[in-house]
């Protein structure tokens, strides 16, 4: 008996050691980023002795980045794009998903097949013809192009539909008998129930749009249209050895995504479990 409990303690300790090492691996690059962002370029790589917080923290890195490149402009563009895309995505895909999950209508299966057939189609396969088309429509070098590109995904519709199918249809039937219109049912019954799915979709869309690189690289050519990712990449190209500044810019570019993630994460595991993206 004694040896068994000793065994469990040993096992527990091992589990904690592994988890601690993994946690350290995950967090060290971020700590390094924070630490380097308040160092001078010479201090960044000084190993003996290595200090996490320098004696004289260079907070000026955080103010300098806004003047060396039009960082404010980049942040503004990215915030604008991300908010519009996330709202459109949530609204249109939950709307369409409601019809696919809870309504009967003509051509339902064919329409849904249209979505389903593209779900495994990487955007990279059709990004070239899409660009040609958008250029014809006069959307080249316009922020609107990125909105059109990101806002109507099959993934969103698919995910929300999976979730709605888990909500009992009898709820909608009862509301229909009470004379509620479909729009009322959607806003008053479905939306309040779909917090986990909406939060999950928000995280995905927000993170994807905020961090997208290839899309903006193809479409946004002029300096004042650039997003934060393009801007940061450009900065790294121009000032490749200004390590402190690069890290300060990087920290700033991470803050919004981390905040959104922390606010919505409590729904996230539930959302992943109930929307069927776990398969």
């Amino acid at each position: 008996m004694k040896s068994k409990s000793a065994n469990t303690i040993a096992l527990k300790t091992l589990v904690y050691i592994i988890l601690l090492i993994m946690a350290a691996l995950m967090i060290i690059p971020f700590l390094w980023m924070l630490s380097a962002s308040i160092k001078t370029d010479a201090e960044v790589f000084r190993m003996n002795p290595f200090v996490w917080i320098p004696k004289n923290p260079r907070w000026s890195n955080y103010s300098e980045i806004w003047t060396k490149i039009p960082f404010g402009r980049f942040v503004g563009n990215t915030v604008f794009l991300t908010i519009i895309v996330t709202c459109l995505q949530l609204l249109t895909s939950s709307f369409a998903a409601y019809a696919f999950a809870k309504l009967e209508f003509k051509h339902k299966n064919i329409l849904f097949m249209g979505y389903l057939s593209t779900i495994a189609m990487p955007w990279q396969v059709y990004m070239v013809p899409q660009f040609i088309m958008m250029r014809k429509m006069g959307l080249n070098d316009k922020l609107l192009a990125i909105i059109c590109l990101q806002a109507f995904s099959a993934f969103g519709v698919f995910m929300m539909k999976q979730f709605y199918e888990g909500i009992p249809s009898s709820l909608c039937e009862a509301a229909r008998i009470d004379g509620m219109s479909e729009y009322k049912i959607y806003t008053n019954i479905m939306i309040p129930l779909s917090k986990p799915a909406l939060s999950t979709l928000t995280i995905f869309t927000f993170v994807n749009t905020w961090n997208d690189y290839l899309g903006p690289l193809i479409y946004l050519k002029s300096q004042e249209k650039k997003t934060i990712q393009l801007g940061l990449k450009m900065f790294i190209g121009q000032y490749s050895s200004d390590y402190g500044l690069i890290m300060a810019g990087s920290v700033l570019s991470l803050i919004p995504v981390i905040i959104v993630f922390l606010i919505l994460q409590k729904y996230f595991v539930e959302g992943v479990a109930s929307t069927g993206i776990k398969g």
Partner: protein
Amino acid sequence: MEKITAANVESFQNELTSLIEKIHTESNPKQKMKYLKRIDKIQRSISAYRSKSKLSRETKRDLIAYSFIAPNFIGFCVFTLIPIVFAFALAFLSWDGSNPIEWAGLKNFKSLFKDKFFIAALKNTIIYCVGTVPLTMIVSLGLAILLNHKVLGRGLFRTLAFFPYVASLVAITSVWKMLFHPSKGPINNLLFNVFNVQQENLPQWFTGSLVLLSMIMFSVWKYMGYYMVIYLAGLQGVNGELYEAAALDGAGTWAKFKYVTWPQLSSTTFFVIVMLTINCFKVYDIAIMLAAGGNGELTLNSTVLVYYIYQKAFIEWKLGYSSAVAMVLFVLVLGVTLIQFWGQKKYQEG
């Protein structure tokens, strides 16, 4: 035929009942005939009205449903479906985006396989996949199983594991490039000072033959948190009684994993493998940010399919050729999806 509307349908129905009563009491055959004709006429009008209203009710139902779908579907059609069709056509054409389009047939595909940059891109993409997919799967499954126990700080760990996933590539790759800097970075510093690796033998992580390894390591680090959450969701669906039954049979930790956890997670594993493989085939940003030189170009050692699509289309404006490369990417992804589809079906049947 009189026009029947929702407003006067009741008065017609009343007339009908009174006519039926009259017909029973009427003795004059001629008058009776007249009543019958009138009854027939009204009945036909009413049934016509009914079927019409049923039809319009269906149309109304369809219209409501379409109004739900339209905002997304129109955008989806214009910006996704049409370009996809266009992409398939483009692979068989020769076009530079401005001059007239020419028919190329299979020419694009034929020259692909003589193109050493394409072969290198295909090879690197596949090596990257073969390295990243199993490693990420094993690490994320392992973490999920550890985290599924009652451990302190579980929520905190789950949150931390997600940081690499949400962090932007530009920011986090620049940290990696500093950590793995060939002459100044702490990793090589450690190898030099602690493990006594000779200065000239210190690994050049982002050039030459180690590039793909660095990309694989980075991807495992970045994506394990996400797949861990998916596995955690899968583990929540495993019936706890199965473990108790296994414990009664004297199963140890490994046997429990082999006979309970692993089979119960099969559908999650299928999903994880497919998502991972598709994401690996699409790799572009990671290669560009970790491996590109000062000119932003990739070499034979580090080039990947999507980089080649981009290069051919937006730098050289060989749109048909670029689309042919895109078709290869599509076939790879389709293949993986189909294998998953059949595999899962077979597994569930067997």
